[in-house]
């Protein structure tokens, strides 16, 4: 019934701790200009705009309306989504549905956060229900610390294995000019010696707090083929939530049930039976080192409890069987509202063959995931040929 949709262009800011040279709209526009400029597109070709951001992180109500002219959306359909860390992937999924439905031919998706302008850890605490979790929340970091502890107990994963994820991320970030935390000489010992934030999570186990924006153009088949020689076709998308209260999911990270459900669904829709063999690259939303290892398991890259072995064996390195996060991942770059869109954008760059120094050769099938809210998942499969 619906038609196909494809990603044709991607643009990002250079993500950093603090962009003191630009305002929020200027930062977002930078990503939009880079995105359109990458394929010589002009704003007149955009039919609709979808924006992802968490309003309370910057304290601006209806930010998309405030910046409508800055992002070239004035006079056009403009949608604003907000559902936590997943939101960037939700933007990509919304763009795909809006195109596939036939409503719009070309949709500009935008995700951004300027974390330096607010207090994200505090604002994220207001995610808790005022009657329940809010008075006893400990920001994203406390939450992740608890989640990591359950995963360690479940799988026996070690701090060294987690540290290898940190090393992989920050080294690959050096190949990505947009990545925030770039540390070519980082070692496992350095990660293990970094300051404890919320055990077992140390400073270098955690994602940074970034200012940045990402923009992605999604287009209908005929338009996509006009705009770029090798579009990244949206082969499958899925969204799966967990329940309302954080304590409902027994292990949260370990055997993360929304990730299992969403990834199983996209594999099935895309005809993938063995994801480790059939995916050429994955860009997963790993908020902490332990999360990436746990996600290997939920994504069925390995058996339960084998996430640590996967990094030990180098399976997810760039030269490995299934490279994970050659961009440097969330551990290197985290402007929250943009983070999951960056996963999709990086997967699209890999499929389009435009990832530069962190390009994996010959990518035909790529997976991107978003994580956020109460352990929610968004999953997208992109392919080099139209489904």
């Amino acid at each position, binding site marked *: 019934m619906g038609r196909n949709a494809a990603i044709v262009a991607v643009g990002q800011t250079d993500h950093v701790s603090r962009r003191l040279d630009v305002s929020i709209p200027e930062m977002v526009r930078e990503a939009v200009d880079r995105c359109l400029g990458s394929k010589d597109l002009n704003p007149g070709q955009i039919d609709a705009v979808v924006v992802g951001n968490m309003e309370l992180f910057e304290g601006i109500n209806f930010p998309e309306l405030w910046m409508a002219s800055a992002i070239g959306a004035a006079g056009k359909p403009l949608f604003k989504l907000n559902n936590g860390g997943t939101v960037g992937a939700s933007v990509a999924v919304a763009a795909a549905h809006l195109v596939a439905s036939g409503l719009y031919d070309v949709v500009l998706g935008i995700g951004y956060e300027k974390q330096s*302008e607010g207090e994200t850890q505090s604002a994220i605490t207001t995610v808790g229900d005022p009657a329940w979790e809010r008075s006893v929340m400990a920001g994203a970091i406390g939450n992740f610390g608890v989640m990591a502890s359950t995963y360690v107990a479940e799988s026996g994963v070690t701090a060294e294995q987690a540290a290898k994820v940190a090393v992989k991320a920050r080294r690959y970030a050096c190949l990505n000019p947009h990545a925030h935390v770039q540390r070519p000489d980082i070692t496992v010992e350095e990660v293990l010696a970094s300051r404890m934030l*919320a055990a077992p999570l140390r400073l270098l186990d955690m994602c940074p707090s970034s200012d940045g924006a990402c923009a992605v153009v999604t287009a209908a088949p005929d338009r996509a083929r006009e705009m770029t020689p090798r579009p990244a076709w949206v082969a499958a998308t899925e969204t799966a939530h967990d329940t309302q209260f*954080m304590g409902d999911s027994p292990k949260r990270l370990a055997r993360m049930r929304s990730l299992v459900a969403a990834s199983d669904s996209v594999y099935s829709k895309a005809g993938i039976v063995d994801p480790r063999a059939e995916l050429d690259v994955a860009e997963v939303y790993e908020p902490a080192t332990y999360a990436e290892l746990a996600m290997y398991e939920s994504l069925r890259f390995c058996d339960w409890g084998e996430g640590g072995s996967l990094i030990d064996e180098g399976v997810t390195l760039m030269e490995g069987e299934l490279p994970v996060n050659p961009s440097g991942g969330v551990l290197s770059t985290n402007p929250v509202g943009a983070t999951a869109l960056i996963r999709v954008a990086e997967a699209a760059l890999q499929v389009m063959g435009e990832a530069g120094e962190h390009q994996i050769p010959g990518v035909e099938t790529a997976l991107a995931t978003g994580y956020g809210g109460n352990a929610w998942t968004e999953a997208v499969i992109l392919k080099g040929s139209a489904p």
Partner: protein
Amino acid sequence: MDRGCHPEGVGAVSPTPPIDSSLRLEYVADFEYSYAAGEFASRFMNALRTQARIQGTRCEACSKVLVPPRPVCGLCLERTAEWVDVGPGGVITGYTVVEVPFIDPMTGIKRPIPYGFAFVRLDGADTNIYHFLEESRHDKISIGMRITAVFKPAPERDGTLADIIHFRAEEPAADD
């Protein structure tokens, strides 16, 4: 409007502004809310405040006891029916010690660190709640450890989850 001519009233073109120094405008959000806790939280809070009782609701379909209590079981999509007492004892199902300070948005001030923070499964419940631990030494906490709720004295309880100050180990930790 004719935009082709130099607009009236425009004086000298000012030099490009300095870009070496940044200008940041401060803004303090001070939002006040009067959240209705709703039927389920109101009943829970009332029992907590007046009797130091912790309660959940049982889903008729899956028989799970859900804490916090709620109208719908998110897994079965069925209404919950029965109210059940849970705790005050329970076990730790996940934990950390938070060593990074951040502003508590409810007060606008930073919480003192370090503090123990855990997933607690109360006796009789099938779900976990987040709460603070009395213990803040990481090596004195473990998954499966038994703990019990420490309530504020009755006059100080105001009907929020913070009426439980924190959870304390049932067996005191041996001193080092």
